């Protein structure tokens, strides 16, 4: 009987133990995740913090944008016992005013942020303060701050990250959100019975998907371009201006200096974030003339040795009078480009099929965005076949283009006739070692014949050596290019202004092995002297003189001008 009873008792104990062990195994091992989730749901509430983003490098590996880890200091005011003491000590550590911290601590909010974007090296000191004062309702949470170490250098191309939500809001930061990551992350607060958060508990990080981005921009070339642009602004006080440098063989944008510009570190202090290289379209003036000549050569509609009468500076088409900047009489097609005669170009254009002229402009990439930058302008290119409009179109009036479209069209002259898609982003990397190409070099089509290219290169070189851009020529390097001056429409006069202009220079150098395409633009540059005539050559010369030799020296290029090489 006793033996039987003992068996029963032992069995009951064993069974009870077994149940406990099985439950323990179930809780601790098999369903650990599930039960932890239940606990989190029941006891934690979630709050958002800003996640770090990937680093943006220039083409030489220099950092252009970086997310530096920082800390955010929280408090749950109703549970902070000695507010005066906390405010006093924190103000010393954070170098913030005591009254400001005290005001936050006396707030009736459930929790307050006492300081944001605090240097993480201060964390141990703040932790010590919390433990010394036994104020467990002051918390520290990891966060991050986007920093642009070069300040406004390439500022409006990089864009910025919204400081409240950590997402790229302008420029490349906006375009590359998918790769750079960022945005919000979650932190958890332990809740009391009534659901009020009382302790900051966890910081969940999920930064696996972020990538570092490598741009085509070279920060040294960018700096040179910005310095040269500063000279132009100092001298001419334009409303807007830009210097754009592109590699004509790949379409890589090496520098994009624009004015106005901004410092992305303090973007909220600025009102204007437009990047005029991509987001504004202007009339290109005489920059369109070489394309008309190329069309005439390719269509065999021109005798390159025959002189054309330039009507002594005036022509009337469809009852509209169009003037030249000088009274030219007879000019060869080459002289028409070198001296930038409007009437000569118009007379050539009127011999061509107007549809083909517009088709050529479109083939050169005008009238549609290149897709390299967010919010890009397409430019206005409407087919209007009336002779007066064809005449205006041939001299770059009545239609608009962006600076990047101009750069790519002139790059086509430099690289053997191929229109390329511009690139701002070279590639991305997740490990910082292997760079994967994001956008390969993309050739759209051949847009110039070899015959027209040979003629254009020689002619555009003469424009810089003897023509309208001669003030910007280099002693050491051959430059080919074209100046452009477009009259601005004056709403007061309801006509084209004789005082307000868009001035341009677009070209490439060295002529026989082009390394760089350059576009220089100014909107409403001011006269230095009253009697001065504003023109693309004069305005751009300050940039050309200050930039081209310096840029070639930076890339260790040997001078290619014949007289110089012979002298050596």
């Amino acid at each position, binding site marked *: 009987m006793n033996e039987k009873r003992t068996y029963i008792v*032992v069995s009951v104990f*064993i069974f009870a133990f077994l149940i406990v*062990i099985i439950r323990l195994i179930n809780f601790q091992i098999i369903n650990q995740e599930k039960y932890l989730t239940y606990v989190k749901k029941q006891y934690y509430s979630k709050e958002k913090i800003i996640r770090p983003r990937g680093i943006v490098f220039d083409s030489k590996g220099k950092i252009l944008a970086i*997310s*530096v880890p920082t800390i955010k200091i929280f408090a749950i005011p109703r549970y902070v016992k000695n507010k005066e003491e906390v405010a006093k000590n924190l103000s010393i550590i954070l170098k913030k005013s005591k009254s400001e911290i005290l005001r936050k601590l006396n707030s009736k909010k459930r929790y307050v942020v006492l300081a944001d974007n605090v240097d993480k*090296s201060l964390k141990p000191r703040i932790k010590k303060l919390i433990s010394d004062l036994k104020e467990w309702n002051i918390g520290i949470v990891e966060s991050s701050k986007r920093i642009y*170490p*070069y300040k406004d250098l390439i500022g409006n191309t990089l864009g910025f990250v919204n400081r409240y939500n950590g997402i790229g809001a302008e420029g490349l930061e906006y375009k590359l959100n998918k790769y750079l990551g960022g945005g919000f992350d979650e932190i958890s607060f332990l809740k009391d019975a009534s659901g009020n958060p009382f302790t900051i508990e966890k910081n969940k990080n999920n930064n696996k998907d972020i990538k570092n981005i490598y741009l085509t921009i070279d920060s040294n070339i960018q*700096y040179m371009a910005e310095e040269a642009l500063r000279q132009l602004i100092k001298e001419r006080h334009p409303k807007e201006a830009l210097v754009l440098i592109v590699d004509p063989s790949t379409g890589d944008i090496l520098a994009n200096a624009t004015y106005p510009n901004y410092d992305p570190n303090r973007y909220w202090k600025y009102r204007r974030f437009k990047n005029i290289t991509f987001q504004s379209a202007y009339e290109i003036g005489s920059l369109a003339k070489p394309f008309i000549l190329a069309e005439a050569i390719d269509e065999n509609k021109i005798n390159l040795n025959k002189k054309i009468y330039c009507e002594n500076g005036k022509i009337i088409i469809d009852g509209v009078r169009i003037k030249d900047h000088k009274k030219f009489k007879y000019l060869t097609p080459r002289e028409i480009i070198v001296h930038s005669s409007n009437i000569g170009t118009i007379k050539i254009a009127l011999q061509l099929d107007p549809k083909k002229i517009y088709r050529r402009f479109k083939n050169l990439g005008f009238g549609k965005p290149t897709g390299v930058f967010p919010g890009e302008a397409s430019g206005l290119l409407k087919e209007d076949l009336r002779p007066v409009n064809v005449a205006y179109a041939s001299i770059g009036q009545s239609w608009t283009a962006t600076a990047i479209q101009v750069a790519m069209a002139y790059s086509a002259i430099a690289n053997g006739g191929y229109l390329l898609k511009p690139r701002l982003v070279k590639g991305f990397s997740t490990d910082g070692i292997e760079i994967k190409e994001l956008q390969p070099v993309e050739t759209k089509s051949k847009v110039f014949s070899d015959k027209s290219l040979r003629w254009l290169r020689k002619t555009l070189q003469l424009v810089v050596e003897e023509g309208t851009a001669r003030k910007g020529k280099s002693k050491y390097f051959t430059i080919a290019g074209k100046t452009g001056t477009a009259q601005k429409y004056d709403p007061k006069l309801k006509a084209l202004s004789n005082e307000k202009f868009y001035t341009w220079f677009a070209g490439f150098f060295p002529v026989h092995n082009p390394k760089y395409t350059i576009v220089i633009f100014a909107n409403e540059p001011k006269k230095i002297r009253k009697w001065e005539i504003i023109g693309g050559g004069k305005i751009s010369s300050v940039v050309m003189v200050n930039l081209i030799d310096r840029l070639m*020296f930076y890339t260790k290029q040997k001078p290619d001008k014949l007289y110089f090489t012979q002298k050596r």
Partner: protein
Amino acid sequence: MRRFNYQQRRDFATISELPKDLRILRKYLKYFIGFLTIAIALVYYSYLNFQIEHEITTLTKQKSMLIAENYELKKDITVLSSPERIGKIAKRKYKMKVAPYSEIKFIESNE
């Protein structure tokens, strides 16, 4: 012969049953030891888990501090190597100028 009362007889009976009970207990002792070992192992597993988690937390904190320091240093290096700063030092402190091409000699390389 000595006579025992009822109580004494019951005591003797209990004592005589004791070895029998002990035998039964001994028979199940290995099971008890087994359960006890499992219980101790579970507690030790929990303890080890806690220790490792603590170590991971400490190391993660250290890592995050080092990462932050690294990023801060990277930023500082970039600021210090900015072309603007180097340009200013070169011009103002060392009175350097951009070399004119006329003063540069190019050496042809056969490689």
